[in-house]
């Protein structure tokens, strides 16, 4: 499936400074009031990669993604995106810079139609670019085409997840943050979602993927980070992480 994507926007602007990866987190410390959720996270994502972030409940995965997309700001440390320090940049401006975030829990606009949700995803885009983008998303998720006039809140869980991903794609992100896209989906749908993530990546979008479904995530990712109570405890190529003893025990359900 090669949907008509505006290739220029994806390839033309991803110039990284002095060979630095697209996204770099250095010593990132994020707090919720007194709660020290991220305790010095170092992480990077290079252009074109799929990188996965795994870890137990409460490890700080969602917090990491929110810190990247600007919903949260680190108290210490920096987030650099394409060479620029974006640690203090608010979320609504980061979308324009090319970061798309499909948040945990889908967070679709339940009292808007599917089409309106997708239009919201394209909020920062010029009007003429919207129809081809809609076409691209609907080709990726034919279900959304069928349901385009249905209210978001009345979609099934899986459809909502498709909508959340599709909506994030509508902003034409160069970096797509996905927070547990497979949560609550049937095994077949999980397969489909992962296939689509690969597809999106092959069309030129860099992906940072947070997953509970570690085996699946590791199988499509190039590299992986393991997070534990706000710290990166393991990093490396996905294959190596997958074969790590501790990881197999803790996250892949082996003993």
């Amino acid at each position, binding site marked *: 499936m090669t949907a008509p994507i505006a290739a220029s926007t994806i390839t033309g602007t991803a110039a990284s400074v002095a060979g630095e990866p697209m996204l770099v987190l250095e010593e990132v410390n994020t707090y919720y009031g007194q709660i020290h959720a991220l305790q010095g996270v170092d992480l990077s994502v290079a252009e074109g990669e799929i990188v996965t972030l795994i870890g137990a409940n409460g490890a700080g995965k969602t917090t990491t993604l929110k810190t990247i997309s600007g919903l949260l700001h680190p108290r210490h440390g920096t987030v650099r995106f394409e060479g620029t320090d974006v640690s203090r940049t608010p*979320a609504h401006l980061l979308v324009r810079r090319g970061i798309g975030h499909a948040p945990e829990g889908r967070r*679709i*606009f339940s009292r808007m*139609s599917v089409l309106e949700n997708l*239009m919201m995803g394209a909020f920062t885009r010029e009007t003429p670019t919207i129809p081809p983008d809609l076409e691209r998303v609907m080709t990726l998720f034919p279900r959304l085409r069928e349901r385009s006039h*249905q209210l978001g809140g009345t979609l099934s869980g899986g459809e909502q997840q498709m909508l959340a991903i599709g909506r994030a794609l509508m902003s034409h992100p160069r970096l797509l943050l996905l927070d547990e896209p497979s949560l609550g989906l049937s095994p077949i749908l999980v397969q489909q979602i992962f296939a689509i993530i690969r597809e999106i990546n092959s069309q030129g979008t860099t992906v940072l993927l947070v997953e509970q479904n570690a085996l699946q995530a590791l199988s499509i990712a190039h590299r992986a980070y393991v997070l534990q109570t706000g710290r990166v405890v393991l990093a490396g190529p996905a294959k190596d992480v997958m074969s790590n003893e501790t990881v197999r025990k803790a996250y892949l359900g082996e003993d």
Partner: protein
Amino acid sequence: MTAIASPAAQPNPLSRGIRMTVIAVVAVVAYMLILWVLLFGLGGRTVANAFPEALQQTVNALSIGAIYALIALGYTMVYGIIELINFAHGDIFMLGAFLATVFIAGITGNNDAVTNIPLLIVLLLGALVFTMPIIGLLNVGIERAVYRPLRHAPRLAPLITAVGVSFILQNVALTIAGSGDRKSPQIFPLDWTIPIGGAQVSILSIFIFVLAMLLMLALQAFVSRTRLGRAMRATAQDQEASALMGVDANQTISLTFLIGGVLAAAAGLVWGLRFGFVRFDLGFNSGLKAFTAAVLGGIGNITGAVIGGFIIGFIENGAASLGYSRWSEFLVFVILTLVLLFKPTGILGQLTGDRA
């Protein structure tokens, strides 16, 4: 697949609009007929002369209802987006009424009706163009200066602050204009009427209703069909998710206060034209009723606020028609209580968000 690529707001928005219109027309006609029956049943009128009276009162109800609806929109939109009951909104309306009065009195210099139609149109448009942006921006300024710093404070803080702002605005008006009724020039000729069904329907009533409807339809179109309107609805539903779409919440909230202020200013202008006076405490009662209208319709819901405004107008008018004016406020609150008892989220039901 170009068909789906053209964005539409709601499933079959047209048929929904037609259905709403039909319901509204039926409700208005039903009110008129019921009033007709009550007038000769309870009010001691004859069957024949009760009809023109019922018609006349229905027109009256539509104009006062339109005024409440315009004010109620400001309450409901602000609540919808930041969950603040903006107690000062009634006073924004009051300042709008004052400003329109000052503008018209300043230009005409007297209290006379203007019978030259082009001149009247220019004056009315001038008053709208003058007051709407000023009051709208005042409302935006208040949000910037007072509510925004409290955005993340406990819920009670902005609420109490809004009460404080209400007092401040009232006292500003009190200091400048004094405590009595201030005369508002009734430039719209009150003797312009058209005979319908034996009644003399005042053209001013029709003007007020039509102006309010045009503003409300414009708002509806803006909110349901434009990019910014969609952003407003999105922010009302989920501020964080909207930010991830690139929506600047502060800007959207400012826009909401702007629209609320603009509509209140229009309500203020027509208020002065119809009742011929303004007073510093005008916003208190009108505001309370408009707020009730918003709650009645389902706070946060734009259509609900309009429906609620008209319902309050009809209740008040019904009481006045049958000679129970002193009970009208009581009745308004009894009905509010009943609705909330059986439908806590108001007539249209959603607590926040759905603004279409």
